[in-house]
């Protein structure tokens, strides 16, 4: 390290500032005479300013008299154009590097990971994939149900908007008892339950928010379809237990003292559901098969997700209601947030299938499956070609989202803003 004159340093930086301030652009001077060192041609506000510490400092600069080549290179470096170019180059390099590091490289990496994971030849390597076991059966849980084909929109987009044959499917993400927002959303999509519109909820209608029973009654009134979310699953199991132990109507003495606050809340909600409401909720299947929708392919509704490549009948119900990520080796789904998003993998699986079918089948879309789901509020609205994530965190002040599918397979996203109901508490 060579010790440098602190005064000289100070002047240098001050001078830089002045370059920017001077009225006539300095590089004109550089053009005029090229034989002289560039530094002399630079017009500087400092030179016209009388007296002060600047003069003293500039004198000390002259005194050191550095060798000519250093002066030359210094003048080149200090030339504004050179600096600008260096800056631009540096900037470009940085942008390039950052976009490679943050965008392109991870994408490529993810793509190759997914392709490797979905490659059938890796199945033996992994010792088997998820879904070979005998799917466990549970009392009171409907695993799969098929939507009445009458409700599904037709293939032709020519149907007039007000014609009686017009059909729409309106999928709505996790409502969590936000009745006002649901009503607002239905109004926004001009929902007409008696003229061809059918409402389908992706589960978690209840719990957390202000009016769970109100939401259940509202959608029951519209003869809506639904799937079983993890919150319905819990509350219905809790309610069943309360019925069995004869504590549905009257709580046990002092139960609040030994139950956790979550269990107290769950029991209260379970007790607030009428028999009809509970019956309706428990009729919601884990998987709703909408069937083939023209222009989209087969559409399936679940609360959380599906494991790619596993038949609907063999999907593990607990995982279907809770999964967020999936293990790349074994395809075992998991509720934890860290890891490969299941929807990315599912979407990749279906697009591979689609490109395979493209060459052989007349209508390749009909061989694909699109999943409409909720549950994962953390990743907000995530709509891919074959996966449509509609949970946008309504109950915590996000939005309530609807996916509207019309005749001809036209898809629209409609959203309304929500109040933050969790903050209030």
């Amino acid at each position, binding site marked *: 390290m060579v010790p440098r004159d602190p005064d000289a340093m100070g002047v240098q930086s001050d001078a830089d500032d002045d370059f920017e301030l001077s009225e006539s652009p300095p590089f004109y001077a550089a053009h005029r005479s090229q034989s002289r060192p560039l530094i002399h041609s630079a017009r500087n506000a400092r030179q016209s300013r009388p007296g002060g510490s600047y003069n003293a400092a500039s004198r000390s600069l002259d005194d050191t008299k550095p060798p000519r080549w250093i002066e030359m290179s210094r003048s080149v470096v200090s030339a504004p154009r050179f600096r600008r170019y260096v800056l631009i180059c540096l900037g470009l390099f940085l942008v390039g590097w950052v976009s490679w590091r943050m965008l392109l490289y991870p994408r490529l990496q993810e793509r190759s990971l997914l392709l490797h994971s979905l490659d059938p030849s890796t199945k033996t390597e992994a010792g088997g994939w998820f879904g070979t076991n005998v799917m466990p059966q549970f*009392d009171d849980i409907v695993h799969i149900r098929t939507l009445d084909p009458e409700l599904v929109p037709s293939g032709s987009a020519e149907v007039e908007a007000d014609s009686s044959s017009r059909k729409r499917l309106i999928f709505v993400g996790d409502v969590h008892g936000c009745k006002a927002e649901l009503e607002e959303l239905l109004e926004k999509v001009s929902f007409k339950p008696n003229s061809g519109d059918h409402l389908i909820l992706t589960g978690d209608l209840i719990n957390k928010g202000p009016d769970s029973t109100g939401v259940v009654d509202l959608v029951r009134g519209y003869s809506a379809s639904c799937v079983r979310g993890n919150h319905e699953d819990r509350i219905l199991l809790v309610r069943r*237990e309360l019925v069995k132990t004869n504590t549905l109507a009257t709580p046990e003495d002092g139960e609040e003292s030994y139950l956790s606050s979550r269990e107290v809340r769950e029991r209260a909600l379970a007790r607030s559901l009428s028999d009809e409401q509970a019956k309706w909720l428990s009729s919601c299947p884990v998987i709703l098969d909408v069937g083939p929708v023209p222009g989209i392919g087969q559409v399936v509704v679940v609360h959380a997700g599906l494991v790619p490549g596993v038949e609907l009948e063999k999907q593990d119900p*607990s995982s279907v209601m809770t999964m967020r990520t999936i293990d790349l080796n074994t395809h075992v789904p*998991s509720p934890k947030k860290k890891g490969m998003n299941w929807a990315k993998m599912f979407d990749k699986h279906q697009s591979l299938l689609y490109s395979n079918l493209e060459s052989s089948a007349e209508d390749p879309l009909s061989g694909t499956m699109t999943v409409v789901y909720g549950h994962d509020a953390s990743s907000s609205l995530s709509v891919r070609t074959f996966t449509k994530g509609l949970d946008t965190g309504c109950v915590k002040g996000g939005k309530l989202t609807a996916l509207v599918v019309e005749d001809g397979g036209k898809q629209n996203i409609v959203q309304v803003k929500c109040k933050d109901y969790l903050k209030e508490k």
Partner: protein
Amino acid sequence: MRSLATACWLYGLLLATIVSGVRGSTETEPDFMSVRKNVTREYKSEKKIPTEKYFHESSFHYHYDGRFANETLPESEVIPHLSALVQTYFSTMNAIGAETWIMHGTLLAWWWNQKIFPWDNDLDVQISEATIHFLAEYYNMTEHHFDLPDVDGGRAYMLDINPNYVVKSEQDTMNKIDARWIDMSSGLFIDITAVRKDENKRKNGHPEALTCKDKHHYEESDIFPLRDSTFEGVAVKIPYAYTWLLEEEYGPKALTQTTFSGHTFNGATKIWESTKRKLKRFLRQGWRGDDLPVRTSDLNPIIET
């Protein structure tokens, strides 16, 4: 198809008669529900750590109770005995209304095909804190007789509660198992572990922490509410987040790997097939309706007067 339907119907009828028979005999006695109020309270732990072990493994094998046997069963006999253990245990607990569910390796076996692993020689169940207090109070050292198909004179089972169940501390490493359901004919048993509130963790910001003396820790919401399913042909309870619990305990591979311990999972028959023929036959046939044990003794709680 028809024969299958008839078999199912017969099985259902049989199960109904067992359950109603047991229920009938206990109507006047305290069942778990009627005494629930007394047992759903905070349980204070005994502070003194015991210096003696209550359940001893036999000298010849750690999965046999030496008080009831001198030698291990022939290998082909183990699985049928374990199967009867599970069936009798759950039919008894269901009749009492006690809260108990399968866990660990037994849960993994349930996950694969709702049958015991052919290489297993132990079974794991858990019970709630309220249940262990209830069982200790009313059913400790009770004998239960069952008629079993192809077993002359049936078999007797005993519920033995470890008296150190009142010690909640994990430091009591010699009494990790809180109770046993013992096959008195062979010495085979089911390990019963109580799941308790983890008071220390709860004080430190984990309001749902649970703990067992075998040092397993859980979140309340992973176990409760329990689910209803079947295992070895009887109704059993399953912890709520079963897939997640298994993944955490054994890793994802345990849910997918189709070869294990000299056995291969046959994707078509859905059975873990071994090379040993006798066992294979039993596993292929599995349980049938008339294979289920039938209780022959009354289900009487001990009530001190």
